[in-house]
């Protein structure tokens, strides 16, 4: 527990009669990729929203970097170093690719209320933003409108924005969603190298990617974690086979 960057205990959220997350206890340790898998509607995205602070939990505690963050809103959690990507790309469509990343850099710099200096000439924003675009392979798209790049490129841009926040933990909500096999493979390689920078809580349906990347896997079914373990442990778990993998295979 001591090396957990992010830990959830007894986190619960009920929508009407639906238990979206049911006493979830989970931790994300330094240097690991922890995959969160489960059938559609299991409550994975809801859990990500609870961690990011977009949905308030009914019960339970979330600790991040040794601090209880229950009372903090999404803005404060992001500023503490919790960076999330969205299942459906959520970007500034009218901004250029570069501007999308610059906005994140602006937040990190802590200086948003600057009224006079032109932002596009501000090397302290442009240079680190370009560096992140180069990392994800989007540097040649920097001046294009985010609305005009391809779906796969928008997924890459989501990653670049998250990277630009220099987070202490990543919450990635289906980063491979809608990517072709080529793109998935490339992103898998990229995420593999990312765990050294900050641990990743990875929600993903692409099982090849999950098995290739995850140090540990938690399986969420009807809002409840039915198993947590290494790839081999999860593959061998009968409950998981019945509830999830068995159904798919």
């Amino acid at each position, binding site marked *: 527990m001591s090396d957990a960057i992010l830990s959830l205990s007894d986190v619960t959220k009920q929508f009407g009669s639906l238990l979206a997350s049911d006493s979830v206890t989970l931790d994300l340790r330094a240097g690991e990729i922890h995959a969160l898998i489960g059938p559609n509607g299991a409550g994975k995205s809801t859990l990500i929203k609870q961690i990011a602070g977009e949905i308030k939990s009914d019960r339970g505690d979330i600790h991040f970097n040794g601090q209880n963050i229950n009372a903090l809103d999404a803005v404060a959690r992001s500023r503490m170093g919790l960076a999330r990507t969205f299942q459906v790309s959520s970007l500034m469509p009218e*901004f250029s690719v570069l501007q999308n990343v610059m906005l994140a850099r602006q937040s990190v710099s802590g200086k948003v209320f*600057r009224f006079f200096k032109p*932002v596009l000439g501000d090397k302290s924003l442009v240079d680190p933003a370009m560096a992140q675009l180069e990392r994800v392979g989007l540097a040649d798209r920097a001046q294009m*409108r985010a609305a005009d790049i391809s779906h796969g490129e928008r997924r890459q841009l989501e990653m670049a924005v998250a990277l630009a*926040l220099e987070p202490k933990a990543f919450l990635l909500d289906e980063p491979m969603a809608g990517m072709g096999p080529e793109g998935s493979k490339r992103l898998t390689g990229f995420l593999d190298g990312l765990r050294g920078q900050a641990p990743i809580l990875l929600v993903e349906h692409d099982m090849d990617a999950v098995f290739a990347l995850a140090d540990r896997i938690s399986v969420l079914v009807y809002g409840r974690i039915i198993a947590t373990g290494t790839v081999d442990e999860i593959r061998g778990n009968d409950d998981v086979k019945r509830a999830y993998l068995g159904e798919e295979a």
Partner: protein
Amino acid sequence: MTMNREFLINSILAIALITVPLIALGMDEPFIITLATKVAIFAMAGVGLNLVLGYGGLVSFGHAAFFGIGGYAAGILASHALNYEPIMESPFLIEGTTQMIVIWIVALVVSALVALVIGAITLRTSGVYFIMITLAFAQMIYYFAISWPAYGGEDGLSIYVRNGFPGINTLDPISFFALCAVMLAIAMVFSAVLIRSRFGLALQGARQNAQRMTAVGIAPFRIRLVAFVISAMITALAGALYADLNRFVSPTMLSWHMSGEIMVFVILGGVGRLFGPLAGAALYIILEHLLGGVWEFWQLPLGVLLLLVVLFARGGLVGVLAGERKHV
């Protein structure tokens, strides 16, 4: 290419605004100078609104409140000064003034404070609710002005002599026009600088995707509130000039018709375009005086035009002429 074309359109608009009154001066047509002054002032009110409406995506239907506050700042201060009645005597003496600079400072401060309160409440809502609540606040101020007999109530307040500005004879139409045009230019330059700054990037980001703003750790509310206050201040300054142009201020300046008119300038000219409000205000005044002179239902074609702009030309007049933008 489109940037160059927009620059060309903007230059033509700016040159037209300056040359038309000069020609009118040569032809001894002071009425045209007054119309051009009106265009400059309305454009400035629109520049204020454009900041929140165009760049921030916040449809404020209550900007008449700030336009009127500016107007009443001019009217009230001038009436006290002209009647030699101090505004208050105890605990300390506050007197009226006929100095525009003092009036403007008062207009800026009062409108900023009012906008801070209105914005802090209205900006917690969005969409239709935001439109209706800004309207409601403006109407509250409107009815307050109507039922406040000390400053003329429904009848309004006359400013017998136009307020003064050091080194300028403000009673001379072309001089007053020049003053208004310079103020408009300052407002536009300020606005242009603002939207290119970090703050401007955040404001435009908040318009496009509040969820993403929050996720990168910038609270849209604070950005919008600051923009709302700045926007109100610019519109209030225009209001102070408008009261001086007419030498009269009345609750009409505060009414929802006025809010609608300012919105029309922005939408007609081009939402989120720097020169949009100028193009819109100019077109509005030209229509009002060309068509209005021959046909009392001149607002009918204006309505049709507005409808066409909203349906087919989201960039307004400037957008149609200059083409779509690549990115902001």
